[in-house]
């Protein structure tokens, strides 16, 4: 796989700018409820974007924005959905935790542990139809201790379904430390319980995680059965906006924000290797922020859903 460093950098930067634009809506209460940003976890989103085909399916979690963008969900409609506008992906009914884009085979769920089963359904269909697509089920470290992790990997392996289980291990499930509630030091090693390969990669090293995901996806796409990829990372903000986040040491957070920022890391690397100049990278950042700021302005101008339609869409039209 040939990587385009500038493109990797740009995609990460756009993702972060997207979430930063959303954050503005939290300040103003335009976004109420608990927004979960992916800031700090951009490299994993990029890894997805690099390897998926339009026909692959992705089922994500409460922390889904970057996965949606990676899958090709239109950012404008996604942001409008996060702001719960009638123009949103789901006409403001779903909200930030529940974006559904059937065209791009993307969906998410706000229930931990509920993403893998749905991904399994896509994988089953691909296998049944003999299609060369894969289904990616994404979950956090916390979700891997949910029973569905076991059930889904078992079924996928027993029936050799094209499921890639991508775990974003940011070491915390809200305040609960992974190591305090998990019997093994890594998630990848649990793959052996399903006779599949599990792999762990630094999810803040954009090239490493991109290559690892690409290999994993290729293996599964080629009929190798399901696979498990654990990408380590760190969540930069509270679990949700409004989270007091006093369960993580300030020192830890500060250190991690420097050491594990995928954008900063990659920036340093690109500069070191002379792959880009400061000015070029700054321009990419500025352009991304500009794009998202403009998008935000647009979205803000959109209408909220009309209360008269509150009861629409519960059931499909009768045949």
């Amino acid at each position, binding site marked *: 796989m040939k990587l385009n460093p500038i493109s990797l950098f740009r995609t990460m930067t756009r993702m972060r700018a997207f979430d930063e634009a959303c954050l503005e809506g939290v300040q103003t209460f335009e976004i109420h409820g608990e927004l979960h940003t992916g800031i700090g976890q951009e490299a994993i989103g990029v890894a997805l974007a690099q390897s998926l085909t339009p026909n692959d*399916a992705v*089922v994500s979690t409460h922390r889904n924005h970057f996965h949606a963008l990676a899958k090709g969900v239109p950012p404008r409609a996604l942001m409008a959905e996060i702001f719960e506008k009638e123009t*949103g*992906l*789901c*006409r*403001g*009914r*779903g909200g930030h935790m*529940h974006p*559904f*884009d*059937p065209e791009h*085979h993307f*969906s998410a*769920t706000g*229930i931990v542990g*509920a993403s*893998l*089963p*749905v*991904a*399994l*359904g*896509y*994988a*089953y*269909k*691909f*296998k*049944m139809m003999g299609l060369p697509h894969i*289904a990616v089920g994404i979950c956090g470290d916390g979700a891997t201790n949910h*029973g*569905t992790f076991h*059930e*889904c990997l*078992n*079924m996928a392996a*027993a029936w050799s379904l094209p499921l890639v289980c991508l775990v974003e291990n940011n070491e915390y499930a809200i305040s609960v430390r992974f190591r305090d509630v998990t019997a093994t030091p890594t998630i990848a090693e649990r793959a052996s319980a399903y006779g599949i390969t599990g792999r762990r990669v630094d999810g803040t090293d954009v090239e490493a995680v991109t290559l690892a995901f690409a290999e994993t996806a290729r293996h599964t796409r080629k009929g190798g059965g399901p696979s498990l990829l654990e990408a380590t990372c760190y969540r930069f903000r509270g679990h949700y906006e409004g989270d007091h986040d006093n369960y993580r040491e300030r020192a830890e957070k500060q250190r991690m924000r420097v050491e594990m920022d995928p954008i900063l890391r990659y920036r340093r690397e690109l500069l070191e290797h002379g792959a880009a100049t400061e000015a070029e990278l700054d321009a990419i950042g500025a352009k991304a922020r500009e794009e998202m700021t403009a998008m935000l302005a647009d979205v803000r101008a959109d209408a909220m859903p009309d209360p008269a339609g509150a009861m*629409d*869409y*519960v*059931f*499909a*039209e009768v*045949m």
Partner: protein
Amino acid sequence: MTVRKINASQAVAESLMQEMARDESVVLLGEDVGRSGGVFGSSRDLLERFGPMRVRDTPISEMSFTGMGVGMAMAGLRPVVEIMFVDFMGVCLEQIYNAMAKIPYMSGGRVKMPMVIKTAGGNIGSAAQHSQCLWGTFAHLPGMHVVAPASVRDHKGLMAAAIRSDNPVVFIEHKGLLLKKAKDFLTGSEVPEDAFVTPIGKAEVARKGNDITLVTLSAGVEYAMEAAAEVAAEGIDAEVIDLRSIVPLDTETVAASAARTGRLLVVDEDYLSFGLSAEVVVRVLEKLGPTALRQIRRHAVPDVPIPAALSLEEALVPGPASIARVLREMAAAS
């Protein structure tokens, strides 16, 4: 159209067979649906006919294979997911009510959910964890249709309707009906051989009558028909309404009858409180006015887990004898 007498489990299996033949996107999955043909035989012969990708025996992983059904439906298939007994819904309700039932709405109508949950309920002496009906539980949670057939004919026609529906449907069979012989059905067991659809949401008047409106569904219809026949000899003329589905609830048909009789009895094999029986009563009052009924009675399982001993179960679960008793009491009271 050829019509034969078959039993309810055959009717379901036949409907599945025909719908699967008709539409390649229909897939059946669940425990023991394949090699065994279903613990009640309601998926017999399907594995042989359609193979293991379309008739899938699953491990005991209900949460995940229910969610797998959700994913299949989103991917364009029409999954029928069997949860062997309705009592087990506690292990997979999450995918049923938070995903299957809500995704159409949450997606702003962009995603259809043509999925059927096929399950068996009812009391046949199987104690607290293998009895129950629980249609009230599903019905309280918005976004799914809830169907419970009574007649053999409806087992076939409603299953076809459920499969063809673009809405999620919870299809609750009754173990007692599945085990009943064709010849023993009071509501008849003549079923057309060809595929047909019984529309979901329309109640059926199983017996016309003028004195008391008796509303029920599933095996309750058989019990009610027996009770109604019994008290008819005593001059009590009960109208028996088979709801067929709880969501949608055909208030129209019930209210029209109750307006005539002035007396409403709801017979429910599910738990009494916070369920079907109060809802039927209030829907009727909302339609006819708060003082429209002279008599209101509910006859249901009185909020107690189902005991193992038959002597106790019989004391708690509505049956022909207890229904006849209630009908007599109502007739005597005015």
